[in-house]
């Protein structure tokens, strides 16, 4: 796991893509921005997006699905004080773009403003490869991945009765131009391999899932994380679940394993620290900067600059380079994740966290890769310290109520800890806590920081974006486990 920031490199000519394919010239961008500010307003931006995606799936050892898709469009946004006007078009002809700009302009009412003359290109790193071709017509390598996954899962154990594996990738090209002179472009690959299996014995059926990827090309799955890796992991989980006992119910000590259990941070603190909720004072974390919100061993960052990671971005969806932002330092709340609007209205640093699902959506402050830094404790010491508790190493997902701070995350692989030893695996159970309080119970932090394998998709106000999470092994002295057992 590399946690170092990447080296800046030459910016590829992404903007040529929209010029060549759709005839988007600088002159046209300026005209549209002028039209967007024709009724006043403080700021306007244009977000062009072109996406090409492929997916292929194997199911019952047959390749039952293969699909490819293309879409393109542009969103126009106008900001006026706290107001946002937004319109989009999937037709990139000049008259449609100007019409969208006129619709978005309606949010303001005043004399026309002039955009800044001339654009300044955002300097961006190269955190991931930038393939030249939109759609790869040769699917044989992708086909090979899902066939290998199918084979490896079936070979793992004769009790594996069903295997589904899918590979999907997309290439997103974006271009952003704003009335403040911002100009940025990027080519963003995203790939993922998923395996789902069922295991069956005389009494029970159980499921197992695994998957991963990132902003990588197909060679990642041939050399780093192979189909066999994901297939065996899914199969292992399903077989394990065949013998699982009821999860306990009630408050107890909880140890979370490294990696994907970092979804705890995403739900317990991450969302609550997105600036829009704090600007509106609707977050349970509003007004807590400088105050303790976690145990003294806890430092949490959001970092969009990690090479190849699912949550990483050379440039956010408002045209700014991404950052590493410290959210919690030694237990003290340090900062929020901002987009342009919230940074301006709150007079806070702009952290490059303005993201959106697509050109049809208004950008908001969103997480990138959110993780807790490693501590000093040996993972085995952490487990040994627990008299009776739960050791949770894999999760299905989570959710949070930003305002009350209550959050849940659902364990899909967990074990009982009895007298410092891992004993029986338990069935699925939800864990629940209160965001501003839960991390205060962190008493031990392991030295084994890991990031997840690249499966996270975060939903907020109906918009989904890829994210990463990570964590070392962590002990919480108290958390509520929602099982049915004792």
């Amino acid at each position: 796991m590399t946690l170092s920031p990447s080296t800046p490199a030459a910016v590829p000519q992404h903007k040529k893509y929209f010029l060549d394919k759709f005839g988007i010239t600088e002159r046209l961008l300026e005209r549209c921005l002028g039209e967007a500010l024709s009724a006043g307003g403080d700021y306007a931006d244009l977000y062009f997006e072109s996406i090409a995606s492929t997916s292929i799936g194997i199911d019952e050892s047959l390749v039952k699905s293969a699909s490819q898709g293309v879409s393109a469009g542009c969103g126009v946004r106008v900001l006026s004080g706290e107001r946002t006007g937004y319109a989009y078009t999937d037709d990139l002809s000049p008259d449609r773009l100007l019409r969208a700009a006129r619709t978005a302009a309606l949010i303001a009412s005043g004399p026309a403003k002039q955009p800044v003359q001339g654009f300044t290109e955002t300097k961006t790193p190269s955190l991931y490869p930038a393939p030249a071709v939109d759609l790869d017509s040769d699917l044989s390598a992708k086909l090979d991945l899902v066939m290998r996954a199918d084979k490896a899962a079936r070979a793992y154990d004769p009790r594996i009765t069903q295997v589904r594996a899918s590979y999907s990738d997309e290439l997103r090209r974006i271009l952003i131009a704003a009335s403040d002179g911002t100009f940025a472009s990027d080519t963003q690959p995203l790939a993922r391999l998923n395996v789902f299996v069922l295991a069956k014995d005389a009494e029970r059926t159980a499921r197992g899932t695994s998957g991963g990827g990132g902003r990588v090309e197909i060679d990642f799955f041939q050399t780093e994380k192979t189909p066999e890796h994901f297939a065996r992991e899914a199969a292992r989980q399903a077989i394990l679940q065949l013998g699982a006992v009821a999860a306990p119910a009630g408050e107890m000590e909880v140890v979370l394993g490294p990696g994907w259990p970092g979804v705890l941070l995403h739900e317990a603190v991450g969302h609550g620290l997105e600036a829009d909720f704090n600007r509106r004072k609707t977050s349970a974390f509003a007004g807590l900067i400088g105050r303790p919100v976690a145990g003294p061993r806890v430092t949490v960052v959001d970092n969009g600059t990690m090479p190849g990671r699912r949550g990483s971005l050379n440039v956010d969806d408002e045209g700014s380079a991404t950052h590493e932002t410290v959210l919690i330092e030694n237990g003290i709340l340090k900062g929020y994740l901002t987009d342009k609007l919230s940074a301006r209205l709150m007079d806070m640093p702009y952290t490059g966290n303005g993201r959106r699902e697509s050109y049809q959506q208004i950008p908001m402050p969103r997480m990138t890769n959110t993780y807790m830094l490693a501590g000093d404790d040996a993972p085995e010491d952490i487990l040994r310290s627990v008299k009776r508790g739960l050791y949770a190493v894999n999760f299905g997902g989570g959710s949070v109520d930003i305002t009350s701070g209550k959050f849940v995350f659902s364990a899909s692989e967990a074990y009982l800890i009895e007298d410092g030893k891992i004993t029986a695996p338990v069935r699925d159970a939800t864990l629940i806590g209160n965001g501003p309080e839960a991390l205060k119970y962190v008493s031990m932090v392991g030295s084994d920081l890991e990031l997840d394998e690249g499966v996270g998709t975060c939903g907020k106000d109906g918009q989904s974006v890829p994210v990463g999470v990570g964590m070392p092994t962590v002990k919480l002295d108290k958390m509520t486990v929602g099982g049915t057992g004792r």
Partner: protein
Amino acid sequence: MSTAILTTDLSSLAADIVSRALKAGASDAEVTVREGDEFSTTVRMGEVETLKESGSRGMGLRVLIATPNGHRVASTSSSDFSAEGIDHLVSGALALAHVTSEDPFAGLADPGEFGKVEGDLELYHEDVYSLPTADRIDFARRAEAAALAADTRITNSDGGNFDAYSGRKVFANSRGFAGEYRSSSCSISATPIALGRNGEMQRDYWYTYARSLKRLDTPESVGAEAARRTLRRLDARRAKTQQAPIVFAPEIARSIIGSIFEAATGDAVYRGASFLAGRLGEKIAASSVTVIDDHTIVGGFGTSPFDGEGLPSRRTVVVERGVLTNYLLNTYTARKLGMKSTGNASRGLAGNPGTGAGNLFLAAGDMPHDEIISGVQSGLYVTELLGPGINLVTGDYSRGASGLWIENGQLTYPVQEITVAGNLQQMFQNITAIGNDLVFRGSVASPTLRIDGMTIAGE
């Protein structure tokens, strides 16, 4: 102002793409074309916060190539309606079909199965787009204002919203099916925030959703209900870990009915990936439980004239007096199980058809809501569930919850930061009361529901 682009007749376009696919070598083809307009506005603390208005369209092609042992299938989708874009859609799909496997169960439905429900299903109402922007903003403003005015403890707001949508969906295939329909919807909602005695905040929301402006509740009633729901959460406590009867409010109970549907879909059943697999004809729930999936209710939120494969919409009884009477099937999963499609195919622009519910509901019982509450000595009334936490393979169920504690048949103090857990197999059997308060606020609906024997985890 609507920005929909209606330069082409979408039905002719769909038919044209089908015939191009056949010419290019497909044995069969299916085409979906969609277009839609959306409008949304948020008013927060009395001021317009966002205003969004736009339209878009997309098309999808699925091709099938007959082989000695079945069909190979593949699909493409695009937002590029130019001649070149359509060429790519067709050539891309055929190229992809050559890499997929021969599947003996793949293929379009049998000729006699296609069709549609005739007559006006009242899915589209022009009035959704009849109002000037200022009036739409006013709906959002009034809903929020009513919530803010309800009580001094309501000090903040996530806003009032007005949303409108209208769209058209076209489907055509190479077996002669061609159909299209328009639909519309609009909604008003409010999300107030209240401040409790110890400085703790709570939010809740309420909404009205309809296919026509005329059928919306007033913004004032939406705001008032949102305020009531928010205020009743204030100064919540936790509950002790225990087993106790749980009463699910209708807007929460419907998610449990949704789980019955998911577990009974053909896809989950033929794989053995559901606790309902192989249980057709068996008693899977209490005798009072009847679950129906009806795609034909006039004006319903889950109504359509035909399904995602061009089969006529219908009404399917999923559970009748506790007995599982039907799986929910599309053509593929029906063939896998040696059965007939129930007209439950759903479809996106790309990919193979899935399985979707229409108007799915638990038939009303005869108990008034208050009587269900008064029948509980000590238990939980759930008004919100949080998180995923449902395993349809095993039926294991464990979710975050908040609500009100019931003591001696009365709703008392609010509770939060607890979980409710059980197994859906037992939960369905342990449904001990069903309310008479069935109201469709969306496509899935349930009356108030009491389930015994679940575990509450808290302090």
